[in-house]
């Protein structure tokens, strides 16, 4: 019996250790980036253009580029993604087609990001003639984010009680009217949480934009959606692997990593905060 107890203690300790290692991994990443990156951060760094062959100055155009491309991703993926979720949760009947749609969504989520990049090159850059541009990159990232938005939005719609829909239908409202007035408003925080999380991943992606519109340097900010753009993830990639003075720009790379992580963490905390608020509301 003593042996059993001993076994239990050892077992639980090992499990605890694996959790600690995972936390340590995250801790190392965050601490390393913050401690080295904060030296590079200044007002000039986030508000100025690069100077002296990208070895000095700021990263403003990469921040703006990332924001710009994420806006296009949002405009593309949210309307289609939420509509698809509404179809699945409110209209679709369980059957062969619905099962295939769900399988397609799950499989799309597993398609490698570089394959989305290939698709973007063949369809948006060449096929539709958008060229290497913010638009092509935004749409490519939009496709990548779509399965995520659909899945999380559907989950949010499913948490709205059936009685909300029935009450409205009983008063003579049409299906769409009930969805609009009695379902969507209640699912909105959940949809928002999922969408922000999905978009935060899109903002940090590099592989899909690699050949669809991002460049290491363009003078000025993009004027239209058909311009090429600079972006933080790609900037970090080049600064850390292909720059002619890699050691010299190391602190710029750290700074870029910190700004990128900060942007993504802000998006994540916003999402976690909305979810927290939402949970409180439902408990009341």
């Amino acid at each position, binding site marked *: 019996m003593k042996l059993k107890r001993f076994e239990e203690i050892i077992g*639980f300790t090992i499990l605890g250790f694996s959790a600690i290692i995972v936390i340590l991994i995250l801790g190392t990443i965050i601490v390393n980036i913050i401690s080295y990156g904060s030296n590079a951060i200044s007002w000039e760094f986030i508000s100025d253009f690069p100077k002296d062959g990208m070895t000095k100055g700021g990263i403003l155009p990469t921040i703006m580029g990332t924001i710009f491309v994420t806006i296009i991703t949002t405009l593309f993926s949210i309307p289609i993604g939420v509509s698809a979720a509404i179809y699945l949760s409110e209209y679709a009947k369980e059957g062969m087609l619905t099962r295939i749609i769900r399988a397609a969504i799950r499989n799309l989520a597993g398609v490698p*990001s570089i394959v989305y990049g290939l698709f973007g090159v063949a369809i948006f850059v060449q096929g539709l003639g958008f060229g290497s541009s913010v638009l092509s990159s935004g749409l490519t990232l939009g496709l990548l984010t779509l399965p995520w938005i659909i899945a999380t939005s559907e989950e949010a719609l499913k948490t709205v009680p059936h009685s909300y829909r029935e009450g409205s239908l009983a008063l003579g409202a049409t299906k769409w009217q009930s969805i609009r007035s009695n379902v969507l408003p209640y699912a909105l925080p959940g949809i928002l949480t999922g969408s922000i999380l999905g978009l935060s991943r899109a903002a940090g992606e590099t592989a899909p934009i690699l050949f669809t519109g991002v460049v290491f340097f363009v003078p000025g900010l993009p004027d239209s959606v058909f311009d090429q753009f600079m972006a933080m993830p790609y900037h970090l990639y080049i600064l850390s692997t292909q720059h002619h003075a890699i050691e010299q720009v190391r602190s710029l790379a750290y700074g870029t990593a910190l700004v990128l992580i900060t942007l993504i963490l802000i998006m994540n905390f916003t999402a976690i905060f909305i979810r927290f608020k939402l949970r409180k509301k439902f408990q009341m």
Partner: protein
Amino acid sequence: MKLKRFKEKTIHFLFFLAGISAIIILLGIFSMLLFNGIKTFKDVSILNFFFSTVWNPSAYHEPSYGILSMLVSTFMVILGSMVIAVPLGIGTAVYITEVAGTRTQEILKPFIEILAAIPSVVIGFLGIIFVGPLIAGIFNLSNGLNAVNGSILLAVMSLPTIISISEDAIRAVPKEYKEASYALGANRWTTLIRVIIPAAISGIVAAIMLGTGRALGETMTVLMVTGNAPAMPHSFFDSIRTMTATIAIELGEVPYGTTHYYAIFAVGTILFLMSLSVNIIAELVTAKYRTQRT
């Protein structure tokens, strides 16, 4: 009234279109890859493509398009990453669901989500400046850009997937199983090993498959830290070049419509089919587990 019905029908139809978009996109990606990729075989024999170890599309006299080295490299880093991530991920998932208190759970969950949100390029960057020198130091190598580094980073990338899906699987085990085991006098550890994990095993297998899929498709981290030598690797300390890295390196410089261009799409097709198979296996395993439950 008629107008209203027409409006409702139109709205229904629009939602339906959005609903089937996922099928259209998936088929679109596949047919685009296949359409471009298949043209490779006008100039390259299928046998050579799969079984030659030499990938040298820009050779002046005799360009060659063998993907075997890339396949081996890809499998190596997947294997390496899973050796690290599977025990660590499942251990953490079990800890979160079965050992930790509610408070610890509430703290750990956002941590895992944040780890999942860290961009691959940032992890790759740390692989260059942190993990690389560490490996070089420990094993006395000239640099740490090799398959070991790639495996470690891919393990980090796939951990959140493995943890969160195993967690769901363990949580889905009915409470009665646990209670019955306790009632028979088993302690928590025995219950965990003999009852809960066996009951959740198909979900855990699905988690491993999806983690494998993540490692298979990851591009930036391996591109940044594995050195990218396009040759057949002999050990984990060799520089390797995966399929994803090859696409990332070469697509930018290849002229449109050449054999090389199509060969890159052929590599993409293989990659797509592999990730699809991994996903389908995960689906089948999960489906089996759902029917067992009901």
